[in-house]
C-alpha cells in the first residue's frame, strides 16, 4: 500500500525561498477584453500556499497604488469549492486530487514562471480577473438535484437500512464540491462529471427512487440549456477533480438517462 501522493516534490522537507514570474489574466469586468500581465514576486517561502503567494502579490500592488487581482476563494481548506484558477494549464494546478487553496509553493522552484488564468468555459463567464460566474451549477441543481421532502416528521433514521456499499458509493459521489474544475478541464466544457455526481449520489439511495427518472431528465435538459458541451469520454474531468469523483458516475448517468428516457411516463 502506498500513502505518498504522486508528486515527490511534496516530500521535499527543507524549506526554501524563491523568486517567481507570475503571468496573470486581468480583466476589468465581463465586457472588458482582458489580457495577461506579468508580475515579479520575491522571497516566496515554500511553506506558503499558492493563494498566500497571490496575497503577497496583492499587498504589493495595493501599496504601489495598483488594483489587486480579484480571485475567488473562501474556506482555504479545500472544501467550499469557491477557489478556482487555471495554473500552468491545469485547473487547480499541478498536484493531483487538490484544490488551488491547498496547493503549496513547494510545488514550484526558484525562477519559475507561473501562468494563472480563470476557468475557461462559455457557461462560466468571467466577472473580473480570475473570478467567473458559476451560477449555472445552481440552476442545474434547481432542475432536480434534491429529494422532495419538506421539513417535518421524517421517519426514524434507522427505519431505512441502506446497504453500506451503496451508501459509501453515494457518499463518494456526494463529495463533489461544485468547483467547476471538471468543466474547465474538458475540451468540450462539459458538466457531465458534476451532474453525474449529483445523479449518482441520489440514485444510489432508496430515498432518491421516487424522483429518479424526472431528476435525471430535467437536470440534463438544464445542463444543455446552460450551454455546457457534450461528453466525449476523454477523462480529463476525472483526472483533474480535486475530490477524485470517478468517471464511472458518468456511465451511471448515461444508464439512468437512457433508462429514464425509454420508460418515463412523460
Amino acid at each position, binding site marked *: 500500500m502506498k500513502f505518498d501522493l504522486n508528486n515527490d516534490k511534496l516530500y521535499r522537507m527543507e524549506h526554501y525561498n524563491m523568486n517567481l514570474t507570475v503571468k496573470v489574466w486581468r480583466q476589468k469586468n465581463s465586457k472588458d477584453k482582458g489580457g495577461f500581465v506579468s508580475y515579479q514576486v520575491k522571497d516566496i517561502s515554500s511553506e506558503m500556499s499558492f493563494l498566500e503567494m497571490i496575497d503577497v502579490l496583492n499587498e504589493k500592488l495595493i501599496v504601489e497604488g495598483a488594483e489587486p487581482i*480579484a480571485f475567488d476563494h473562501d474556506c482555504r481548506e479545500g472544501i467550499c469549492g469557491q477557489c478556482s484558477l487555471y495554473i500552468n494549464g491545469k485547473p487547480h494546478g499541478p498536484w493531483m486530487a487538490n484544490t488551488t487553496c491547498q496547493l503549496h509553493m513547494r510545488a514550484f522552484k526558484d525562477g519559475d514562471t507561473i501562468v494563472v488564468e480563470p476557468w475557461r468555459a462559455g457557461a462560466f463567464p468571467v466577472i473580473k480577473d480570475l473570478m467567473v460566474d458559476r451560477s449555472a451549477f445552481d440552476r442545474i441543481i*434547481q432542475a432536480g438535484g434534491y429529494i422532495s421532502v419538506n421539513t417535518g416528521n421524517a421517519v426514524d433514521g434507522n427505519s431505512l*437500512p*441502506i446497504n453500506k456499499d451503496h451508501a459509501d458509493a453515494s457518499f463518494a459521489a456526494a463529495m463533489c464540491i461544485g468547483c467547476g474544475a471538471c468543466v474547465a478541464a474538458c475540451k468540450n466544457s462539459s458538466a457531465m462529471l458534476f451532474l453525474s455526481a449529483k445523479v449518482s449520489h441520489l440514485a444510489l439511495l432508496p430515498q432518491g427512487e421516487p424522483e429518479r427518472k424526472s431528476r435525471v431528465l430535467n437536470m440534463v435538459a438544464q445542463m444543455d440549456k446552460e450551454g455546457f458541451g457534450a461528453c466525449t469520454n476523454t477523462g480529463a474531468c476525472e483526472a483533474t477533480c480535486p475530490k477524485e469523483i470517478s468517471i464511472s458516475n458518468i456511465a451511471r448517468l448515461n444508464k439512468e438517462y437512457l433508462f429514464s428516457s425509454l420508460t418515463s411516463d412523460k
Partner: protein
Amino acid sequence: MLDAKIPSGSLDDKWTAYKGHCKLVNPANKRKLEVIVVGTGLAGASAAASLGELGYKVKAFCYQDSPRRAHSIAAQGGINAAKNYQNDGDSIFRLFYDTIKGGDYRAREANVHRLAEVSGNIIDQCVAQGVPFAREYGGLLSNRSFGGTQVQRTFYAAGQTGQQLLIGAYQALERQVALGNVKMYPRHEMLEVVKIDDKARGIIARNLVSGELERHFGHAVLLCTGGYGNVFYLSTNAMGCNVTAAWKAHKDGAAFANPCFTQIHPTCIPVSGDHQSKLTLMSESLRNDGRIWVPKKKKDERKAIDIPEEERDYYLERRYPAFGNLVPRDVASRAAKERCDEGYGVGTSKQAVYLDFADAIVRYGKIEAGKEGNDHMSMEDIIVLGKEVVKEKYGNLFDMYEKITGENPYEFPMRIYPAVHYTMGGLWVDYELQTTVKGLYCLGEANFSDHGANRLGASALMQGLADGYFVIPYTLGNNLADDIYSKAIETSHPAFEAAEKVANDRIQKLMNIKGKQSVESFHKRLGKIIWDKCGMARNEKGLQEAIREVQALKKEFWSDVRIPGEVNEMNPELDKANRVADFIELGELMCIDALNRNESCGGHFREEYQTEEGEALRDDANYMYVAAWEYKAEHEWNLHKEPLIYDVVKPSQRSYK
C-alpha cells in the same frame, strides 16, 4: 430590556407546550408575508428552505457565489443527537446535561433542552433528504465519540459531515428556489438593518458584483451569519466570514451577548510563518484514536519516533484519567498551551504538541489480523493493516495535513496547536430566537444561546439545523401572526432612504481616506492584539492594554487605510474594509466583556481566577448571568444582565478527572 420569554412549566414540557399554544398563520396569509434570511449556512439554508416550504415569501442572501459554499461546509467531525442507537445509556436528558456542563454552566436550560429534544428529528430529516451518513454493514447508522461525553452519539459522514449536511440543506433551498418560494441573492452583503416603528423591516445590501446598494423589504429579518472568529485574523473560519451583519444590528439596537466567550480548538495545524492567511482544523474525532503527548524533557530536539515511550508525557491522560484525550476543547487547549509555555513544545516553533496514531494503528492492525485468524502476523504486516483502517476513518484529514505540512502523518505523529475556531457569544436572543429588536431574529453560531462558555464538539451543526429546521418555523409564525395586516412597505420609504445613506456615507468615507496601509495589514494587527491579550488566557492588565490598543488602531485605520478601485464595481478590498472596520469595534467590546467577567469559565480563562490545579474557577455568586451589551455611542456600552436560573441541573466545579 431582557425578557427571555421562557415558557413556564417543567423543563421537559416547555417546548411541547409552546408548540401547542403558539399562534399560527394560515397559508393564504403566509403568501403575503416576506422574510429576509441573511446567510445560507446550516442555520440560514435550513431556515430559508423550511420557511419557503411553509409558504412564506423568502429572500435569502449570501456573500459567496453560491449558498453551497457557506463555511458550515468545513465542519468535519459530526453532529450529535440523542438517539441512543448504541444502547449506551444516552437520552435527551444526558445530551442536555452534557451540553450545559460542557458550557460550564453559562447557557440557558430551556434553550439547551429544546436543542436536545429536536436533535433526533434533525438526523431523521437529513436521512430523508439523502444525506449519506456513515453506516454499519447491517445498513444502520454509525456513531462515534466526541469530547466531553461518555456515550457515542455523534453521527458523521467521514470527515465531511458539515459538507454533507450543508449540501442537504442547500438542495432543499434550491428546490424552494425552483418552486419560486425563495429568491436567492448570492454575492450580496448586508450592510444595514432598516427599522420602521422600532421593527426590523428590511435590509440594505451591497451587490458585490456591481457595487450597487440595494433595498430589500421583509416583514421579518433573520440573521444567520455565523461567528466572529475572524476578529483574531488567524482562525479556522473561511476568509470571508465576518461580523458585519450582526454588528450593524447591534449598533441598531440588538444587544450583543457574551462576546468574550470564544472557542480555541485544540487540534489545528500550527502556524508556519508570517505569511499565514488562515488555520486549518484537524477534526476532534481524531482524539478518538490519536494520543496527545509532549516529551518529558524540556526542549527535547530528538525526532518523535526516537523518543522512547517512558520519556513521553501523555499529559491529558495523566491529568484527566476519566476522559483522557477526549476532554472538552477548552480544557485540551489550555493544557497544550500550559505544556508549550513551560518549554515542552515541539517542532521548529516549539508551539506544538504531538497527536500520535501509532498505538491506534497497531491496535486496529491486530483486530484485522484477528479477523483473518492470524495470531502470528509480523508487526510490519499488522501496521500495514492498521494504516488501512485509519485511512478509512480519517483518510481525508490525513491527506489535508500532508498537503499543508509536507509530512506524512501515517509515519510521523501530527504536530498540532490550538487555534480560534468558534464563537459562543453573539447577538442576544430570547427563547424565540428574537433579538432585542422586534422582528429581527438571529440563528445558529451568530446568536449566543446554547453553548454557554464552551461548545462541545459536534454541537454546532446540531444547533444550526435545530434553529433553522425546527425552531424558527414555529417561533416566527407566533410573531408574524400579529403582522398579517401589515402590507409590504415600499422601499422608497424614508427609513430605507436613510439606511442606504448611512451605508453609502460610510463607503464614501472609507474610499476617501486614501491612506497608505492595506486593509489586510490592519486586520493582522487587530488579530495579534486580540490573540495575545484576549485569547486562550486573559488578565486584567492585558485587557486594559488591549482596549487602548484597539482604540488607537481604530483611529489609525480611519485615517490611513488604502482601498484601491472604485465604489460602483466589484471591489473585494472595499468589502474587506467594511468587515475589518466592524471587527475592530467588536474587538474592543470583547475585551470590555472579558474584563468585566471576573471569573474563569469555559473558553474564558482569566489568569487571576483558577484553581490550584490550574482549572477554570467560576464565580457563580457574582457572574451567573448572560452579559448583554447595549450599544450607546463610540466606546460606550451599557451592560444588561440576564440571570441564569438552574432549575434542574446543579452547577458544580466541572471535573473530567
